[in-house]
């Protein structure tokens, strides 16, 4: 369908995204080559487990950024839902399912509140979410003053391992030995979960009128308004979806660690890392350009860089410094834009 020109145009329009994907593939492949047990299921499972939470939070951050705003509460909402999940994920299968739904709804409801404050309160997103982030942490501390909690062991095991273990735990597909499951048996479940959310939630949203309106608002809110697009609905939907995605991260963190932890520092770190991941993934902080899939790759790049420290013989004390320098260099590539600008005024947007 797409000719050569079509591919070229796609590349020009999605340069940031394409760079992120390429960078991730190169980094991850090199990592596996260097790793003594590279390209094995065990390594993939471990890596993916450590990436899921930040990947979801980065996807959550993408939506407010596309609007031209910023959500400083994503880490806090993830922490809140993490604590909610640590209270609810045990008992009969029906109870667990209800717990999962309630956790996701908590996040979505919090996002809805953010959206309503931004739309009807007309407060800048960055400052509104700074405040609601404090509220989310407060609620998390109410639910779980001390770290701890109880999560169903089967669920915790099945969702943090390979597809084989999932089938084995719940006894379907002949306990994971069925012939049709073989090709997929080594895939880590967390990878499937992230892809599922990305393609069942994000992609349809992006293609809907509401999703396109989010991009339009980020590009030019006035123009979007004059074109009759549903601005209020799109903003509220974007924040609600952001809350939902953050809740996915919190839910997974609870399943992975079998506990909840209302840690303010951790919430702040997740928020800041999510911004870095969004930028690395090719989404513009000015709004209107990018997407959640890019942020997914941005988050993976951030994580892979830290994986390198395990296999390379680098002084652990230098790790934070190298992480910082790599982040700074990566975002500095955006400066190439300034070299191409012919008119100084084009810089001031």
């Amino acid at each position, binding site marked *: 369908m797409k000719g050569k020109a079509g591919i070229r145009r796609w590349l020009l329009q999605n340069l940031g995204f394409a760079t992120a994907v390429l960078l991730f593939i190169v980094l991850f492949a090199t990592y596996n080559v260097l790793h003594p047990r590279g390209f094995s299921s065990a390594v993939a499972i471990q890596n993916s487990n450590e990436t899921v939470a930040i990947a979801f939070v980065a996807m959550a951050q993408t939506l407010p950024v596309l609007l031209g705003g*910023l959500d*400083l509460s994503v880490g806090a909402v993830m922490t809140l839902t993490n604590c909610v999940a640590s209270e609810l994920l045990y008992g009969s299968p029906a109870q667990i399912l209800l717990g999962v739904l309630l956790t996701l709804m908590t996040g979505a409801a919090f996002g809805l509140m953010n959206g309503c*404050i931004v739309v009807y*309160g*007309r*407060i*800048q997103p*960055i*400052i*509104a979410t*700074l*405040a*609601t*982030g*404090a*509220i989310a*942490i*407060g*609620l*998390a*501390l*109410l639910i779980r*003053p001390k770290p701890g909690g109880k999560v169903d062991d089967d669920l915790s095991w099945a969702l943090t391992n390979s597809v084989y273990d999932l089938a084995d735990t719940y006894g379907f597909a002949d306990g994971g030995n069925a012939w049709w499951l073989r090709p997929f048996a080594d895939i880590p479940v967390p990878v499937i979960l992230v892809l599922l959310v990305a393609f069942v939630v994000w992609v349809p949203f992006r293609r809907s009128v509401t999703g396109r309106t989010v991009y339009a608002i980020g590009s030019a*809110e*006035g123009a979007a*308004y*004059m074109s009759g697009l549903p*601005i209020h609905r799109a903003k509220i939907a974007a924040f609600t979806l952001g809350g939902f995605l953050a809740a996915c991260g919190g839910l997974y963190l609870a399943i992975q660690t079998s506990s909840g932890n209302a840690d303010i*520092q951790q919430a*702040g770190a997740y928020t*800041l890392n999510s*911004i*870095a991941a969004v*930028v690395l993934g090719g989404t513009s*902080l*000015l709004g209107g350009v990018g997407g959640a899939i890019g942020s997914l790759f941005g988050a993976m790049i951030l994580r892979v860089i830290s994986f390198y420290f395990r296999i390379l013989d680098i*002084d652990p*004390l*230098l*790790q*934070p*410094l*190298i*992480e*910082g*320098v790599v*982040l*700074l260099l990566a*975002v*500095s590539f*955006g*400066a190439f*834009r*300034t070299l191409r600008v012919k008119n*100084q*005024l084009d*810089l*001031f947007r």
Partner: protein
Amino acid sequence: MRLSVAPENRPIVIASLFIAAILAAGTAYTLSTTGTTPLLSPNYLLQQLQTGAFLGICAAGMMMVILLGQIDLSVPWTLTAAAMTATAVGGDMAVPTALAVGLAVGLLNGFGVAYLRIPSMIFTLGVDTMLRGLMVAQTGGFAPQDTATPLMLFLAKDRILGIPVAIFVWAAVSLVIALILTRTGFGRSIYATGSREGAAYLSGIRTKWVIVGAFVTSSLCAAIAGVLLTGYSAKAYQGMGNAFLLPAIAAVVLGGTHILGGRGRYAGTLVGVILIVLLNSVLSIMQMPEAGRQIIYGAVIIGMLLVYGRNQQVTS
């Protein structure tokens, strides 16, 4: 008779009224429990201002950057790096070293934002991470000197005429910032650049220099706060600046400065800092658990902004 207040002063008036309300509520609480009014004693208020000085100085610098429509997320580790490097050098050179670190970080931030044109949100975040890495690498393996020098102790803890020296430092920084903003070309350039950089550029303002200047001011303020905080806690330690970033932004915005730049008065930032400091203090007197404090803190910011911080609706 209806009181008329200029729109730019409304946040300041309302926030001041809210400070009075906090003090009244706190006093009512202490009257009902112990029958005394410690909150209204000058000593208590001076002590609050003394601990508020660190936040106040950070917020003063942050305001310069926010007036440009930018943000400085590197404040926590600029503060820490300045303090830790200063104590490691020690002696008479400690305070100049801290200021030099602040200047260097400010120049780096300014260069990234003004010349490389990377959004300040992400560039200062990267600088913050890098500074943290530098400090971890510096203190790793061996323990550098981390005790406060006598000058730092004097600045943070001593009193002149019964008033803590830290308050004088805060007042001096405030005076300088207020004079810059209202009486100098640089100050007016900040407002102009924050309103619309393109227009400021076409009017002959060297907007890049203005941006660098604002970031340098912010980092210098963070360094000064680091010096004071080291004196106050008698030593410099990792993570000492973490508690100042979000409250500083909140204080600036509560004081009526627009987060997208171009509007705001320094008096508002002062009132915003005092509001946050007193709110925290009264909540801890009431023995409110951390959970309740966070919720009230968030609700107050939202509530105050709903009263006076609302944007124009987009209609065209």
